[in-house]
């Protein structure tokens, strides 16, 4: 059974349609990227998947989101918290505001479930290890840098032991080093954890995702693998192809690209596709 299932979801803010007849399912352990331009509805969809909007003052105009076959609204608070965790764009806003130390912030969620202390400690230790927060345990969460706060929000989410983690533009605030560090942390996550990564750029999410969904004007325009996304007609318009992939496409138009090689945005792959042609030209 699908972990998360979105069927026929349509949604509008006041009179502006944001999502139109969206259908998708996320399998347990699946790594999915939802990509789209500004205003494409991806943040809204991310919040629906994480179960945020249905509990607020908003309702779907049509369709529903289920978790293991059950609609969000029918789950109790503890089950919801253990099913899907959401990490949003603004790091400071992810903090509970309930903790004076990093350790307590991570322990906050499991503490709310009234787990025994030993279990909470084990969960905190595991999350701290993955997110590399060991040296910050006694710091005030609000005194951390944006990147550190983002790592903390992910650790706090992991401590809930969710089956899916929804990330909304998680690397937006990062310099390249912090981005690489986050990607390395995501690799350490348990394989059974599904990841849904929503973003407006092609770079970082594609290094994690096995499957990509393109959201365009509130509709799903593409659902498939990364290579297919790069040659999709809307991709270049929405994201601007990275110059490396653009080079490959321009060369292919001129008949200067090896027929068997897939178009890629990876420097190594494009270079190795072209090298044999260079050498034989010499």
């Amino acid at each position, binding site marked *: 059974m699908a972990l998360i299932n979105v069927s026929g979801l349509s949604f509008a803010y006041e009179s502006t349609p944001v999502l139109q007849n969206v259908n998708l399912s996320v399998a347990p352990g699946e790594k999915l990227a939802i990509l789209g331009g500004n205003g494409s509805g991806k943040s809204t969809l991310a919040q629906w998947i*994480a*179960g*945020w909007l249905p*509990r*607020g003052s908003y309702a779907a105009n049509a369709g529903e989101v289920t978790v293991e076959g059950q609609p969000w609204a029918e789950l*109790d*608070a*503890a089950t*919801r*918290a*253990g099913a899907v*965790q*959401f990490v*949003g764009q603004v790091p*400071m*806003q*992810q*903090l*509970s*505001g*309930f*903790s*004076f*130390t990093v*350790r*307590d912030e991570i*322990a*906050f*969620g*499991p*503490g*709310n*479930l*009234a*787990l*025994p*202390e030993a279990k*909470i*400690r084990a969960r*905190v230790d595991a999350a701290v290890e993955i997110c590399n927060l060991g040296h910050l345990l*006694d*710091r*005030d969460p*609000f*005194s951390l840098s944006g990147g550190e706060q983002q790592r903390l929000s992910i650790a*706090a989410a992991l401590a*809930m032991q969710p089956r899916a983690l929804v990330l909304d533009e998680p690397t937006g605030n990062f310099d390249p080093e912090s981005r690489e560090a986050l990607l390395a942390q995501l690799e350490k996550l348990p394989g059974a954890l599904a990841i849904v990564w929503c973003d407006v750029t092609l770079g970082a999410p594609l290094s994690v995702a096995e499957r990509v969904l393109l959201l365009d004007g509130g509709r799903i325009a593409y659902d498939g693998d990364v290579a297919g996304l790069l040659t999709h007609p809307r991709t270049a318009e929405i994201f601007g192809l990275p110059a490396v992939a653009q080079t490959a496409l321009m060369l292919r138009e001129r008949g200067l690209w090896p027929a068997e090689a897939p178009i890629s945005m990876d420097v190594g792959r494009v270079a190795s596709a072209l090298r044999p042609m260079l050498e034989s030209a010499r």
Partner: protein
Amino acid sequence: MAVARPQGADHALLYVPGRSFLHRLNPLTKLTLVLWCAVAAFALPPEGTIPLALLSILIGSFAGAGRVFARRLALTLLPLSVALFVVHGMLVDHAGARASLLGLDLSREGLAYMVRILGRIAALLSGSLLFVCTTHPSRLLKALDAHRFSPGAAYVIASPLLLLEPFTQRAKAIREAQMARGLDLEGSFMTRVKAFPALLMPLVTLALADIDHRAQVLDGRGFRAMPHRTVLDAPADSRQQRAVRWAVLVSIPVLIAGGVLWHL
């Protein structure tokens, strides 16, 4: 056990880090003692309140908070003494005996009233200071949780202290952003008054947006999913402390009754 010493936002608090006996006392025990002090401040005559205040100050100094005590007490009591002295000692026409000090004609009853009020406030203030100087809010929060208080009630008590730091940070960022777009905050009083809405509006709007967002975050982390929470490193408690708390609570009605009888 070491008392947790969170780093970072403590400048906004009166808490003085330390490991004294008072620091290690369970926050709820201290809270009942503060309650006792508050009742005593009103129930006891100056012969009781002034020694009580002096005792609190002495304990506070031993706990390493002497400077905070001196500063806070001076800031509150000195202006108040002057005002009470002038108003009740000299201006208000109390009946009865007069006293003379340094050539001033003073009302004895006015002076007694002044001492009574000062004694009360000193006892109340030093008792509360003893609590806030030796109790980090996180310890109070943990003690409440550990004693199975409802999470919602604990949040209401602790959130103003917890959210002070992000609020201060944001206010500073807004001030800077508005100055950099030409808002004159270095000019005359009137220009600054006129600039005020440009500072207040984003602060209020963003605070409201934050509340909405934080409610979602708390919900996502299972807040109030259970009737009570588990906390790590809850402040130590003991049978003796529980006994002290009960004794203190039981003594409060006695104290009130005694106070009433005294005044009859």
